[in-house]
């Protein structure tokens, strides 16, 4: 089940065909390379638009949340068996 983390992270990635793909993220002074981007969901509540990147790093699943208005990144959830 996904456990909520909700901590700020730094994300590096590439823009290709007007779409951003995260390649690695920095969380608690450790770099996590993105092995697989499994899905991208667009979330909206009012005018607040967020994009959720579901990805795999080192065999674990993570949800990174990008606030498209504030341009901030959060590590929202981590999968825990």
């Amino acid at each position, binding site marked *: 089940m996904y456990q909520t983390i909700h901590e700020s992270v730094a994300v590096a990635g590439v823009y290709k065909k007007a779409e951003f793909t995260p390649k690695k993220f920095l969380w608690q002074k450790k770099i996590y390379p993105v092995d697989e981007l*499994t*899905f991208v*969901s667009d*979330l909206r*509540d009012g*005018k607040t638009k967020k994009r959720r990147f579901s990805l795999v790093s080192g*065999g674990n699943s993570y949800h990174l949340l990008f606030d498209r208005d504030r341009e901030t990144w959060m590590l929202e959830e981590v*999968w825990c*068996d």
Partner: protein
Amino acid sequence: MLQQETPTLRGKPLAIVKDEGRTCIIAASKEAKKLGVKTGSRMSEALTVAPEIIAIPADFDLYWSATCKLKKLFESLSPDVSMFSLDEAFLDYTPLRQMHSSPQEFAKLIQSGVKDTLGSWVTCSIGISHNRFLAKMTGEVSGPDSITTIDLENKDLLLSQTDFKDVCGIGPRLARRLKGHGVVVPYQINFIPDGELKRSFGPFWSVELRRMGRGEEPLFLSRLKEAPSHMKSVGRSITGWQLCNSESVIKRTLYNLVSEIIYKVRSMNLAGRLVSISVNGGGRSWSNHVTLKHHICHTGELFQYVYYDLYKKWRRPFPVIKLAVRLGLLESRADLSQSLLPKWQKEERVSVACDKLVSSYGLFAVTSGLLARGPIIRPEVTGFLGDKQYQFM
């Protein structure tokens, strides 16, 4: 979709429940279905047939995002698309006959598009036929990632081999009634005389069942493209995970449901005058409604009717697990005259101000102090996409 998003879940039997602690299975992975787990069954029943099953809470944001992507993909492939549910759509091949060598080739294009859009783990079953009823039935009974064609020659085989409970439009109650008459597959309807069918199932269902028996489109599918100009009613229900006897929790929950209904109704510039409430708990139920002479579109007004005029007159003889509220007989506010009463106009000014804040900061950004304590029930999409006119607005 959950298996696509979280690779560690791939290949495992999963039961999707609405939330943590809930026991009703609203969807099951193909691995769980193979073990005999059925949608609608309880976790306790699933654990007896599949002890290794994993319960996962539904992720409605994920499903809705996937539906929007699918809609965009389908609309790029065909000019005639009807989204039927969260994960089902009808695409008319007729206007595309000059572009593809066959419907099967077009179906392959759809399948590869779905995999490119949603991911390689996602499967897509396609049923091809001359009407929506047979195409849907085909897609329903064929395996994952299959392309199955039903034509006039093999349609009777499909109609005689598909269980009525798997037929679109047939609910569990009607399926039981049909079984009571010895009818388990649609083809058997052809052997029942018109008079007997009408006597047993009434004037509406006798005609619908006759159509289904012949493999023709029932009314709700043939009318799919004749969407009404606006929604006729907006409702919201919530089922808790245990029976509730707390008046304050029930009051707060009703206010929460009313707020969401009014938010949707006002977003569509509608107002309604049929207010209904229904309550379930411990196998018992109660419901009531009131038809007003005027249309309402304010949270406070709807809450007044739902809570004080309807609910409070009920003496709550049993604890509650499910609450449902509905505002019906909706009309466009452009066709209605506004009340001149100062109280109504004041409430409208407050509602307009709240609408502006909510449209910027999200639903429940501004709400009553009633919802300040306790968790807020947020909007969800339903699998059958009953409010698609609002969702695709």
